[in-house]
């Protein structure tokens, strides 16, 4: 490739974007930073607190537990949704009317607002009036998401799988559709098994979109708030209190602005860090091959 011309005046072109981002992201974030290092008792009076809030947050068992629950939730969600999404994509019709029908049906859950999804499942699972809850009860299965932590977990995971597997499936489907027919024909000629076709043709070609899917699903599930909040409200007890639910409890329920602000920043950094780790690990192989 030829050498690119260097012109530092080009930075001026970026200025409008910088200004916009400053207003929409940097300034609000700075307010949070401001809260996280000060204490206030109202009346707009602030006292310097240094790193006290951070130390408190990082050593708080309540937050440790919420963090572990969050990791568990994201982990389970990824482990179910990614293979399931790929499986669905592999079995969707490739063309014709049914392909369109499938695409629309798959896209529907993605179009439903979070709190509506929460409400749907909240009612769906109720033992007294919900279709799911009542059916399970009449089958003799003791299911009650408001009383039993396991049932609550199963409910919010199934709900998230229902809501978001489509995203993985649609992305994987797009990846699959971009594979030329010649690859499948060559595989038939080479007498490759179904597994070999998946392993050596489909999976490598889907890698790019799957990487995006995993990243998106990780970030979204790690930040999830509305749906579990509507269904379980973090309960029973604290069993489904994920990080964001805990954060809202702390900030708005208890009005502990300082610790909540420190919590927000740590939360943000964790997502940033984990996303970076994910991305780096998953693209490392590409980079290695590119060097060859």
């Amino acid at each position: 490739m030829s050498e690119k011309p260097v012109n530092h005046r080009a930075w001026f072109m970026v200025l409008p974007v910088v200004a916009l981002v400053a207003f929409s992201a940097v300034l609000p974030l700075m307010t949070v930073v401001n809260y996280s290092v000060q204490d206030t008792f109202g009346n707009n009076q602030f006292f310097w607190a240094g790193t006290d809030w951070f130390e408190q947050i990082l050593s708080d068992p309540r937050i440790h537990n919420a963090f572990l629950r969050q990791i568990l939730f994201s982990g389970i969600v990824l482990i179910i949704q990614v293979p399931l999404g790929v499986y669905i994509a592999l079995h969707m019709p490739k063309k014709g009317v049914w392909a369109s029908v499938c695409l629309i049906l798959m896209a529907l859950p993605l179009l439903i607002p979070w709190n509506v999804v929460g409400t749907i499942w909240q009612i769906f699972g109720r033992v007294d009036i919900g279709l799911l809850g009542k059916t399970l009860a009449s089958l003799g299965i003791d299911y009650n998401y408001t009383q039993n932590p396991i049932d609550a977990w199963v409910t919010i995971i199934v709900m998230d799988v229902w809501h978001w597997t489509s995203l993985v499936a649609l992305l994987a489907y797009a990846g699959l559709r971009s594979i030329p027919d010649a690859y499948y024909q060559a595989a038939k000629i080479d007498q490759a098994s179904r597994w070999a076709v998946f392993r050596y043709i489909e999976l490598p070609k889907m890698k790019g979109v799957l990487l995006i899917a995993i990243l998106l699903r990780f970030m979204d599930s790690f930040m999830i708030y509305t749906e579990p909040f509507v269904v379980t409200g973090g309960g029973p007890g604290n069993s489904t209190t994920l990080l964001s639910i805990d954060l809202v409890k702390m900030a708005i329920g208890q009005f502990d602005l300082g610790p909540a602000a420190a919590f927000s920043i740590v939360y943000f950094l964790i997502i940033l860090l984990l996303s970076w780790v994910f991305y780096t690990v998953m693209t490392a192989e590409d980079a290695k091959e590119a060097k060859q």
Partner: protein
Amino acid sequence: MARITLSGLAHSYLPRPKVPQDYALKRIDHEWEDGAAYALLGPSGCGKTTLLNIISGLLRPSEGRILFGATDVTDMATAERNIAQVFQFPVVYDTMTVYENLAFPLRNRGLKGPAADARVREIARMIGMEDRLDQKARGLTADAKQKISLGRGMVREDVNAILFDEPLTVIDPHMKWELRTQLKALHRQFGHTMIYVTHDQTEALTFADKVVVMTEGEVVQIGTPAELFERPAHTFVGYFIGSPGMNLLPATVEGSRARLEGGEVALTRAYPALSGQVEIGVRPEFVRLGSEGLPVEIRRVEDVGRHKIVRAALAGRALDIVAPEGAAIPAEPRVRFEPGAVNVYADGWLVEGTPREREAA
């Protein structure tokens, strides 16, 4: 290895074909002899690839049967047919190394160990990639990838046939020659039945024992390169093969004389009364430029090195002549056609005629 029989085979991509134009491949009955090298020659869109994909089982024909030896394979899957095929554009398994790519068809058939390893290395040497066996396939250039595709096609020794679908399109000219020579060598060595699809006549004529010429979904002639050159069965073969192609001139044929617009030509065979559009065809190589015969008008002379191509007109109709390198162009040019080299066509198809009795004898 087996003889491949096509019986009443036809294919249409439409669900209910009616007129002949609906067929991508018109009815064909043919036997591909075991161990022969065939070329399937024709312009783009003539049904070559369709025919190839039917033989390999990627496509199920809408009519007719295919037999490998005595076994009917019409409804058999590609994998069961044990056939190798190389496609026009390179297909490699990106995540595998060159070695793994070449070994893949063997591994899928459960072949491992030193014999398989030796085979892979032999093929790698043949395609000139033995020093890059451990490299990942994805970073390679298009022609390196196509060489791997070729290698994968040739690596199995027990295949019923090897099919090539314009495999050298993306290869650079120098390598083309070399690979084609190697394919021939491979054919001589192992005796696989090979069917080679191409639209390049040089490729077809140098590769094959027998050339199958197709146009518009129809096989118009199957013959040796010499037969195609000397006695094209169809006017299409006449002008598609040869450079320049055969001259075709409208004529009326009576017995053993053909009357053209510019004069009369004696034929070595006698013909019955012909109906339809009658033409005589004569290759530029068999047209002699001199001071006798039919008067022509010279339009242009192209010197292509070994000989000259004279673009002339006979009574307003284009007539190409191949003249020797040093030949002089006469001031009042006239042409004669070599006796025996004039073919007669009715509605495009060759009319055999009966050899004329020697008048002198």
